């Protein structure tokens, strides 16, 4: 007899959400988190959400995901403090404009059309910025920002109400296999028995799945980000300038948070900050935003993107995997916005009720079967 129906490994946004939805179905759930809840990547991201992706599967996923995210306050009682100011892509070449024009047709088909803007209009709508020879832009009004910490706290509170066993500071160092079936996890000398095991451990997922003899193609990429001191609120959209490789947004405190899109360090390297990123981000941001010169950079940190070969997440289970083993990871920088919907879908799947259509394209076997979900809009 197992102690739990499902053991969830990883107490970040995805793991918490999965455990919450499983517990709501009446299952006995346990969460094992090696540090404190949200300590991995869930409290380290940029806190943006968008429905505008390159791959149609991802768009469909986030159209549902967005609704789920914005309704989270009703579910958990914790406001995720959304700023529904949209995403603003500022474009500097015709090729990019053309690409967005084509994508917008697909997006419109999914019910989330954006606005294609001319260069003059872009400058009018972002008067504080120095955009140079911009030829246009794309505005996605369905997109925006939220506070990631409040998602974690919200789920934590909800799990507390449901009396779910949340074990922090419990690093998993073994997965128990009986024949070809997963029956639990080892935390030090303790064995936590469960009928099923779901790994939602972000960048640490491959190391855990290997304990059960399963290879999952996820690799860690350290990215950095930082915020300024608070200034009066003036910028509501999340601005992305691909030609400069920089994006930024203003948070509720008034802070400008942002980063560059192309500086990264591969591997599970220490989560510290680099000089190279700091001065490069400042250089690029100042070029498009001269008004920020006297504003002071206040806090910076780093976190992992959990990258998959096709930059889309992996969820469900592989056909050849030991029975009872599931995974939801590899979100390639989009885990926090996708966490509420992912938990709901995973709960459906793991509890055995059904395999929702929405998650089918993201099966772990898609790489072997040659049907990747190519996502190129990763920042």
């Amino acid at each position, binding site marked *: 007899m197992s102690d739990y129906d499902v053991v969830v490994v990883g107490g970040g946004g995805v793991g918490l959400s999965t455990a919450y939805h499983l517990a709501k179905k009446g299952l006995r759930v346990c969460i094992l988190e090696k540090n404190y809840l949200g300590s991995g990547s869930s409290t380290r991201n940029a806190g943006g959400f968008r429905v505008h992706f390159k791959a149609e599967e991802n768009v469909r996923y986030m159209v549902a995901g967005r609704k789920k995210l914005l309704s989270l306050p009703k579910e958990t009682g914790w*406001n995720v403090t959304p700023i529904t100011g949209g995403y603003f892509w500022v474009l500097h070449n015709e090729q990019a404009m053309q690409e967005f024009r084509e994508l917008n047709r697909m997006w419109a088909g999914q019910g989330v059309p954006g606005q294609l803007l001319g260069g003059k209009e872009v400058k009018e709508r972002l008067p504080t910025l120095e955009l140079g020879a911009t030829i246009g832009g794309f505005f996605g009004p369905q997109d925006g920002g939220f506070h990631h910490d409040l998602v974690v706290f919200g789920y934590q509170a909800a799990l507390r109400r449901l009396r779910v066993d949340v074990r922090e500071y419990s690093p998993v160092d073994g997965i128990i296999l009986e024949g070809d079936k997963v029956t639990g996890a080892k935390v030090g000398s303790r064995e936590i028995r469960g009928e099923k095991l779901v790994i939602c451990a972000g960048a640490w997922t491959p190391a855990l799945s290997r304990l059960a003899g399963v290879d999952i193609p996820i690799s860690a990429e350290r990215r950095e980000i930082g915020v300024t001191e608070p200034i*009066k609120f003036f910028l509501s959209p999340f601005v992305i300038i691909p030609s400069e490789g920089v994006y930024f947004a203003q948070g509720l405190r008034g802070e400008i948070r942002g980063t560059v899109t192309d500086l990264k360090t591969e591997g599970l390297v220490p989560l510290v900050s680099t000089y190279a990123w700091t001065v490069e981000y400042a250089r690029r941001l100042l070029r498009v935003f001269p008004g920020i010169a006297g504003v*002071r950079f206040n806090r910076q940190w780093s976190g992992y993107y959990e990258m998959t070969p096709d930059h889309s997440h992996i969820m469900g289970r592989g056909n050849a995997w030991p029975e009872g083993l599931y995974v939801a990871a590899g979100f390639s920088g989009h885990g926090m916005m996708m966490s509420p919907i992912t938990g709901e879908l995973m709960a459906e799947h793991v509890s055995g009720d059904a395999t929702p259509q929405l998650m089918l394209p993201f099966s772990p076997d898609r790489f072997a079967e040659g049907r990747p979900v190519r996502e190129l809009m990763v920042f």
Partner: protein
Amino acid sequence: MTINLTPAGQNVSKLKFLLPQCGVSCVDDSGPQRARHFGHSGCVWSLSDLKRSRDSQYTYYAYWSAFLVPRVRVQKVSFEVESGTPLDVALYKEGWISYRSSVKFGRPRGIADASVDYGDNLCVQVTGEGLVDPTRYRVVRDVEVAFGHRATAGSRISERLRRFFGAGFQNNLLMRGGVGWNVTRRVITGSANLEQISHFRPAELSKVEFLKVGNLIVGGGLAGLGVAVALDACGRDFALVESSGVLGGRVEIVRRLLNAAPSTRAPNDDAAEIRSLLRLIESGSAAFRSGRGRLIEGTFTGFYEEKIGLVLCSGAAIAVSFDNIIFANGSRSPVPLLKGNDLPGVISIDYAARLAAHGALRGKTILYSEDKWSSLVGRLMAARGADIEELVQSDRAKIASILGQRRVEAVVFTDGRRKSLSNFVYGTCRQPALELPAQAGVGYSWVAAADILRAEVSINGSTALPWLWAVGSVTGVCELEASYHQGLAAGYALSQDDGRSRAELKLVSVRDSAPAPTTKSADAFVCTCEDVTVRDFEVAAKKGILGPEKTKRFTGWGTGVCQGKHCLYNGLRTLARDGASPYTQRLPITPTPFVVLARLGENAK
């Protein structure tokens, strides 16, 4: 007023006399006085050097400006100050102590400690200079000061609502339910009395420099000087970063007090103790005579993965890459957790000493002292002429609250007594200024029995990482004279001179620390940047938000512009868990203008 003097024979010889060996010009706003202090140093990079480096005209200007009497004008009131006076001191002297209001709730706030960095909302606008940090700005010519940021109507309403909804940014009940969120959001974003982006002027800049050294010492107090002396004696190259402009740390501030006091009035034992410490500083300063060591005047903002540290001078920066780094950046007193502890006029002993040395500590002053050093400084301040009264221990425990409208006015005791005052000075049990070493990787943990944060370092200051060291009161292990010897021990150990290192270690005595204070008012502010009270911590705990990392994220504690320099200790004390580690420190420890970082980026290309 601006003066441009062309170099003339007489002036040049005077300057040569003052600055016999300086490779780079080393006079700044305080002119001859500073030149005397740093007179024999091999190379001094001061903030003004970086601004107008090697510009001889400026050197003369700075020198001559020492004889001018500049005027400061604040909202149509005009007064004269001695040239080179720190701006905050000049303002304090004239009674302008509550010149900013809290970002969120419109409460008046003043300067509590010169070691804390101020947000732009706490900075003042000086004509021609833009926004400046008043604790770093020295008045050498006529300036006009503007205080922006009066509380907005929204923030005043929020102040009223605070008692119902709790302070802090995130734990406001209004934000919980999601009902009317769009309206609430507008109130929040609209009410914060923050600076508008259009008001910012790109700071004048300035230069960036790149420097490579073997050993980088952060902090020029007794411990840092000890390291410098040992490294110099062993022929190692080093650079020492000191932000205040003078060597000696807290002892140096007291030197000024002692010199200013009529000798008959300073208690003999106190004077003798300070003089013996001053002799150590004197021998420490000699470490720069050989020219192997450099002195950098600026603020160290933190450690980057590439083993580069950034030193921020006024409007300029030096990127220093190093092989070893030794933190010796001292300690500070956290504000007691009493109701009203955020009012202007509630100031630390270090800051009070700075004011008293300039004769700017006026009016009735009450000293809340928990350690011997603070009591000693209090006596010296009294000898300097300050009207100061130290609270006895039984009275300290009986304080109910600190009262005041726009500034501190009185302290009320639990037995109903009331003392009127103009300044409430606290000298609580000193805590290590751990933000820099902790950020670089030195572990710290809270020792509840001793009521102190201690660094996880060995007695000679080494850590598990061979290039990372911490000595002196920043370790929480020793202080004052013992710090100097620990610094020497570390310096010798770094130079592989184990014999001398061991000899110095024999002189290192562990500091005694006071037991934990018992008073903890729910209305006391823990974090004044983000307006977090003890009650907010209690709310967090009730919601199951436990531990420093989660509490930080829930309340916003320690994430403001002071980067936790002021509030870390009180937060950990409120969480009251023995062995608790502080939350992870984030770079940059001193908020840095974008223009400085960007210029470094351009030069890195």
